[in-house]
Each structure stands twice: as C-alpha cells, then as structure tokens.
C-alpha cells in the first residue's frame, strides 16, 4: 500500500531521516515510534507531501506520490494532528464537510455522511454538528478531527500524535475506539506516537525510529520478545512484556525437550528414565513424535507387572495446549486442571514441548529478578 524507498530528508547538512525503506501493508495500523525529534513527523509528512524528501521515493498503490496530483493525493489521505487542526471559525459540520464540499459532492449525501461519521466517533449528530470546536472538550474535538479524516472515505489515514495532548482518560478511551474502528474498517493507518503503551494497544506493526533510521520494524510481539538491539530494548523497557502478558505465548515459556518415552517401552524402563531425569511424568510418543499419552511416576509404582508396555497403562485423558496459546489461558488451565504439567502439541498432535508449573514460575519470577541484576 505504502512503500518508502530510500527516503532521506536533510535540513541543511543534517539528515533528519536517513535512507529509510519501509513497506506498509494495506489494512495495517503501523505505529511510528521514537523519542521527540527522531524524525517521526517528518517521515509522516513525506507521505502526504507536506515535506519534500531530499532523495528517495514513496509509492502509494505502486505509484509514486509525485505522480499524483498533490491535492488529490491529500484528499485521499486522512490527516489528524495533535492540536486537532480544526478550524475554530467553522462549526463541527463545516469542519467535517469542508473537503467533500470543495469536491462539490451531492449535498444530501454529504449531510448523511456527516451524521454517519459523528455516530462513528461516538458523538450525537443532533447535539454536536452545529457547535463550534471551542464548545467541545479536548477529547470531543479530537473525535471530530478523526471524523474529518474519514470524511472522504480515504484508504490511508495519517495521524500525528493525535491523542498525546488529551487527559489520560480520554486518551485511553480514544485509543480503544480507534482500535475498534480499525478492526471494522481496516484502513491503512500510519500513526505517530512516542508512547509505547499507546503503540502496544493499537498497533499491528511498530516501527521504532532512532535518529532518522529504523531501529526495528516488526509486529508488537516480535519487537517485545526479540528487541533488535539495546536501543530498542531501552526504548520499549526491559519488562514491557509484563504490561501485556497476553502477548506471551506458550512457545516462549515451554520446555522444548521434555523427557519422552516410546509407547512400546516397558514400565520398568519408564521408571528408570524418570529417576534418571528426576521427573515425575513422561510423554509417551510414537516413532513419528506424535503424542499418545502421559505416564505418571505415582501410577507406575502401583502397577504389578513392570514388564507391561507403557501404552497399555498410560493416561489418555489429559489437556494439551498449542504453542500459540497465550500464557494467561495456560495459567487458567494449570489452576483448574489436575495435572501439574501440560504437553504442548501442534495441530497434527506432534509433541512440541511441555509447560510445567515450575517453568511458568520461572518465567513470571524473571521480571522481578532481572532488574536487581542491572542495579548491582
């Protein structure tokens, strides 16, 4: 949808954006994030040609933005800024309708669209359409800013710290509503912020910018779990993941090589194996690594005939989880279930790993132990 190709922007000798290449897929909400002055706004404004890059190109729908008519390009991209950018001398209606009216769209259609947009941003059209921006709260004003951006039904929407000036409650509310709106409308949104919590909440992908270059561009999960470098790590905060534990998946915390036994082994053999590895259960698998069952030490001790094969005595009725399951669900399962460990399998029942109470505990306690190490 939007493709940056080696974009550089210099003011004088100083490069504010250096050689950025970036691909934004249709329907994604991409957050550009970084500290103040790192070039986020500049990068955003290059997309709608408010800033002319020193070199490089940006393609929108595979066509260079410089091959579009400047005005047309902008009318097909919503633009929302921090200070709302609403016109104070125009009513809410006039603000929302300005571009459609300039385009001489049908009056009735415009009016219907305005009411629709107001509903969309959660404001009663009858009450608010004929008010002036100064008669609205900050949060309401920014809702109008968002409504105006959607007025021409653009495919792309650019937002430059739209919620940063709001009080925390309105901010959280508008973030939720934007996420909800995006879930329904699936526009391509480029969103600038310096607030990591905001990014985590709304982003499909985040692009962390350091001094005009991309430090990391990936999904929120990936960036959190595998920060590309110490800059990214410092920026997102080391224990950031714990403010969104739902992002941690089973595969991140599971034991990758659980102790297994083939289904045709004897019970005697299984007891020896458990002793040797100091575990109280074994995963029973066949030659193709398919999980067939589980044997527990306490059950095996009770079996009289230790020459029996494990497949005849193994447990068949137990919970399994997928590698992609999130940790919050797993904790619930562990809490409610009788087993102290849960096998992890993929859709073809192949054994991938094992979650145990202690592996969970280790993961959870890491966040408290690590900061101490950095202090000393």
């Amino acid at each position: 949808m939007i493709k940056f190709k080696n974009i550089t922007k210099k003011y004088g000798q100083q490069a504010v954006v250096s050689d950025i290449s970036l691909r934004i897929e249709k329907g994604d909400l991409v957050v550009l994030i970084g500290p103040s002055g790192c070039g986020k706004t500049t990068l955003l404004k290059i997309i709608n040609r408010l800033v002319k890059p020193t070199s490089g190109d940006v393609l929108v729908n595979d066509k260079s933005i410089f091959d579009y008519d400047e005005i047309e390009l902008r009318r097909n991209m919503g633009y929302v800024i921090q200070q709302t950018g609403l016109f104070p001398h125009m009513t809410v209606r006039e603000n929302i309708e300005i571009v459609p009216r300039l385009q001489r769209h049908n009056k009735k259609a415009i009016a219907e669209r305005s009411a629709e947009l107001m509903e969309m941003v959660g404001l009663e059209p009858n009450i608010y359409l004929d008010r002036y921006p100064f008669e609205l709260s900050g949060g309401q004003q920014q809702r109008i800013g968002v409504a105006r951006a959607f007025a021409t039904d653009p495919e792309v929407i650019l937002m430059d710290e739209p919620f940063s000036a709001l009080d925390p409650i309105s901010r959280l509310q508008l973030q939720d509503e934007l996420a909800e709106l995006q879930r329904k409308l699936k526009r391509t949104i480029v969103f600038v912020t310096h607030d990591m919590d905001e990014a985590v909440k709304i982003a499909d992908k985040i692009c962390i910018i350091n001094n005009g270059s991309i430090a990391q561009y990936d999904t929120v999960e990936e960036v959190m779990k595998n920060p590309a470098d110490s800059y990214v790590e410092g920026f997102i905060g080391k224990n950031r993941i714990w403010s969104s534990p739902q992002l941690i998946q089973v595969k991140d915390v599971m034991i990758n090589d659980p102790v297994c036994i083939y289904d045709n082994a004897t019970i005697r053999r299984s007891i020896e194996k458990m002793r040797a590895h100091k575990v109280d259960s074994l995963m029973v698998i066949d030659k193709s690594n398919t999980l067939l069952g589980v044997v527990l030490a306490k059950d095996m001790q009770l079996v009289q005939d230790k020459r029996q094969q494990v497949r005849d005595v193994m447990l068949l009725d137990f919970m399994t989880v997928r590698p992609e399951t999130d940790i919050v669900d797993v904790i619930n399962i562990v809490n409610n279930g009788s087993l102290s460990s849960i096998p992890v399998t993929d859709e073809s029942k192949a054994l991938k790993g094992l979650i145990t109470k202690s592996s969970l505990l280790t993961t959870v306690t890491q966040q408290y132990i690590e900061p101490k190490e950095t202090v000393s």
Partner: protein
Amino acid sequence: MNLLEFIFSHMDDVLARLLQHIQTTLFSITISVLIGVPLGILISYIKPFKKPVLGVANVVQAIPSIALLGFLVPFLGIGEKPAIFMVVIYSLLPIIKNTATGLSTIDEEMLEAAKGIGMTKFQVLTRVKLPLALPVIMAGIRISAVTSVGLVTIAAFIGAGGLGYLIYSGIRTVNTNLILTGAIPACILALAVDGVGSLFEKVTTPVCFRNNKKERRDKNEKINT
C-alpha cells in the same frame, strides 16, 4: 444669529456637502481596500516584499497632507481627483499592515492541517486565513476610514468640496458660525464612521473570538443536562 439658527438656515447646503463628503470618503476607502488588502495578502506570502512595501507606505504617511496636496495639483489638477489620491495613499498603511499581520498570526499547525487535508493555497486563503484575519483587517479599515473623514476635510483646500469647503469659507470670511457649521458635522461624521466601523468589526468577528463565547458554552451545558 446664533449657531443653531445659522445651521438650520443653511441646512440644504450642509446636507449636500455632507453627502459629498461621505461619497468622497467611501470612494477613497473602497479604493484603499481594493489596493491595500491584496497588497497585504501579497506581502504575507512573499516575505521579501514585506519590508519595501511597508517602508514605502510608512514614508508616504510621514509626508504632511497639505504638502502632499500641493505636490499633487500640478499632476492631477484640482478637485476631487487629487483629494481621493491623497486619502487613498494615507489610508493604505493601516490596511496593508493589518491585513499582513492578521494573516501571519494564524496558527501554523492549523494551516498545515488545512493543507494536509487537501485544500489548495487559494482555498486556505479564502476559507481559513481571511475569515480568521477579518476582524484585524476590519480594524485597519476602521482606522483608515476615520482618518479619511478628516483628510477629505483638508482636501477642500484644493477644491474637493465637502464639509471642508464650509470651514475654509468660514476661515476666509472670519465667520465662526460657518466654520462650526462645517466642523461639527465633520466631527459627528468621524464618530459615526468609527461607530459603523466597530459594528462591522463585531459582525465580521468569527464566533470563536467573540466575548460571549463563555455564555454560549454555558447555554450548551444547560441543554446537555
């Protein structure tokens, strides 16, 4: 004869001259606006023009009006023409200056947003900048208009007519009543122009800058609850 009787006995003449005075003033101001506002817009867009244009307007205003009139007569003759020329030249500065100031004190970020949502430069000017700058521009026009009333009086000196004619006749014939018959209506006219100007200023002030902003908000709150 006392003053009031004098004025009433000359009522027809006074009214005719007053009308002529108003006409000359209005005509001059219209021309000043037609020249001054575009010049103000121009220098707000083309920065290098700003200093020379304002400089010239400043210098012109510093010339004493009588001297300027004398200077104009050889070129434009006597009568209304040089009078209008002078009034226009004197009233340009406040109009140019206020137009330029009004246009350049508008929030930059909002203007960039206007551009960003796809308004052309001309649309930004006509739909955003001018409406927002209008009260400041109107204030400039008001100052010019009030000054013009006085200038047109002086222009009677070169045969432009108007209320000034009565004053000059009075001075020549040492007739105090005649001087006052010209001066009092001229004074009232200046005040009236100021009043009308202030009315225009109020009317053209966008709702967002008006004093009753708070009242509106309170009213809305009442509706809400």
